[in-house]
């Protein structure tokens, strides 16, 4: 250990000289995340009211139903997006701080342990496979955009309802979240050392610059898209169960 006198060595959970409300951010973040995760799990297990007319809950999209399998269709498709978020560089920061308390905030004592291995050992070393979950969830985007198209269909004719806008907003948020991903930014062009060495590298540099603009807002897209997924599901669920009526705008 470094030579620091006892007067300075404040050890133990939450030990700090900080006087600001450092605990507010991890507490709020952890609470909101827990609420969203709880709602998404509850909704995914309902196996009802996930569809109304052309509207389909994003928690059930793409809709795959297997008649002999007694499972909600959401459980067949949700694992990759869930793992994509679980290994996301932003969410890692959020839950390491709020749930693992490792650390709860900057320059604040944590639940100290000599066994800290970070992401070098199982299971957290699997965070390194985030890019594969990006590849898989990227395949979901065409289905989500086709849901937007279906949400403009009302009995065979074109229309726009509040639900259409809710589903459009959700798909837009998920698309921005996917393309702002750190792994995507690396794969698009970040892995190059020389951006000007070939025409292909110059094209990838242009794409990397765009991805970098989005990446700077990755945290925003992470939160907004989680909210919109739950909101879109809730809206479809409320309409499908007859609690509210969808309003046609066009």
């Amino acid at each position: 250990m470094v030579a620091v006198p006892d007067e300075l060595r404040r050890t133990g959970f939450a030990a700090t000289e900080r006087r600001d409300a450092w605990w507010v951010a991890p507490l709020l973040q952890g609470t909101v995340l827990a609420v969203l995760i709880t709602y998404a799990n509850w909704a995914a297990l309902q196996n009802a009211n996930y569809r109304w007319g052309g509207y389909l809950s994003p928690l059930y999209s793409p809709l795959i139903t297997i008649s002999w399998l007694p499972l909600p269709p959401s459980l067949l498709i949700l694992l990759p997006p869930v793992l994509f978020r679980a290994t996301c560089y932003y969410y890692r920061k959020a839950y390491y701080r709020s749930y693992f308390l490792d650390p709860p905030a900057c320059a604040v004592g944590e639940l100290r342990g000599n066994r800290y291995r970070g992401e070098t050992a199982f299971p957290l070393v699997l965070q390194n496979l985030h890019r594969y979950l990006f590849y898989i969830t990227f395949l979901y985007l065409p289905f989500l955009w086709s849901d937007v198209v279906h949400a403009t269909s009302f009995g065979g004719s074109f229309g726009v309802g509040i639900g259409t806008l809710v589903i459009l907003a959700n798909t837009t948020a998920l698309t921005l979240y996917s393309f702002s991903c750190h792994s995507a930014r690396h794969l698009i062009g970040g892995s190059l050392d020389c951006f000007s060495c070939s025409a292909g590298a110059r094209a990838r540099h242009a794409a990397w610059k765009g991805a970098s603009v989005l990446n700077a807002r990755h945290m925003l897209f992470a939160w907004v898209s989680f909210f919109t997924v739950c909101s879109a599901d809730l809206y479809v669920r409320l309409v499908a169960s007859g609690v509210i009526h969808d309003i046609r705008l066009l």
Partner: protein
Amino acid sequence: METVLKIFRGDGTAGAFRDYTVPLQPGMVVLDAVHWVQAHQASDLACRWNCKAGRCGSCSAEVNGKPRLMCMTRMDHFPPGEAITLAPMKAFPVLKDLVCDVSWNYGVNRRIPAFRPRPPEPDGTWRMQQDDIDRVQEFRKCIECFLCQDVCHVLRDHDRKDQFAGPRFLVRLAGLEMHPLDAASRTAHLKEEAGIGFCNITKCCTEVCPESIHITDNAIIPLKERVVDDFYDPLRRLWRRLRGTS
């Protein structure tokens, strides 16, 4: 107007916080207050400083528990009448008062594989475009204040200095690894010696950086992705094996 500074006085074996009352002046920064204490109340107070302009990275300390440059922290940043606590960086051994021994960092720096330029062009020169070096120029802003090292919980709380280089040197490695003229690969060094896997990207280094370098997003995470390319990505491994380049 006056304020009270609670300054740590002592060395690596013992010490205590002592109170010093300091008159406030408009535009005063914490380093001014420390200099006032040195001039009027404690001429033996040890404090490392040089430029007083946020360029040299010498006056790093913990002000009210937050790693900061004392020369860039204004006294009017704090509520009037409230004592301000000043302590040395806690991730490093205390030499005296506010001065730490940061020499461990220089040892880490020496072990980083040096810049190795690719072969020159036919005319014997190297050329690179501004687009190629924009990215690495951000990393050259580092003033080596070591605030990021101090706040990093891997070094500060877990004391993994034997296995983890810390954010400052991941920034330096990023500057070398992404350099358009450099031909060396440092991913093995990153994985084994620099211990990049110990970073759990909680971004405290980015929060305290006085140069606003996006340490986590622009240096550490891209380096983690390069380590994944070379060591964790099964398809890339298969591809390299098929091409006989592994």
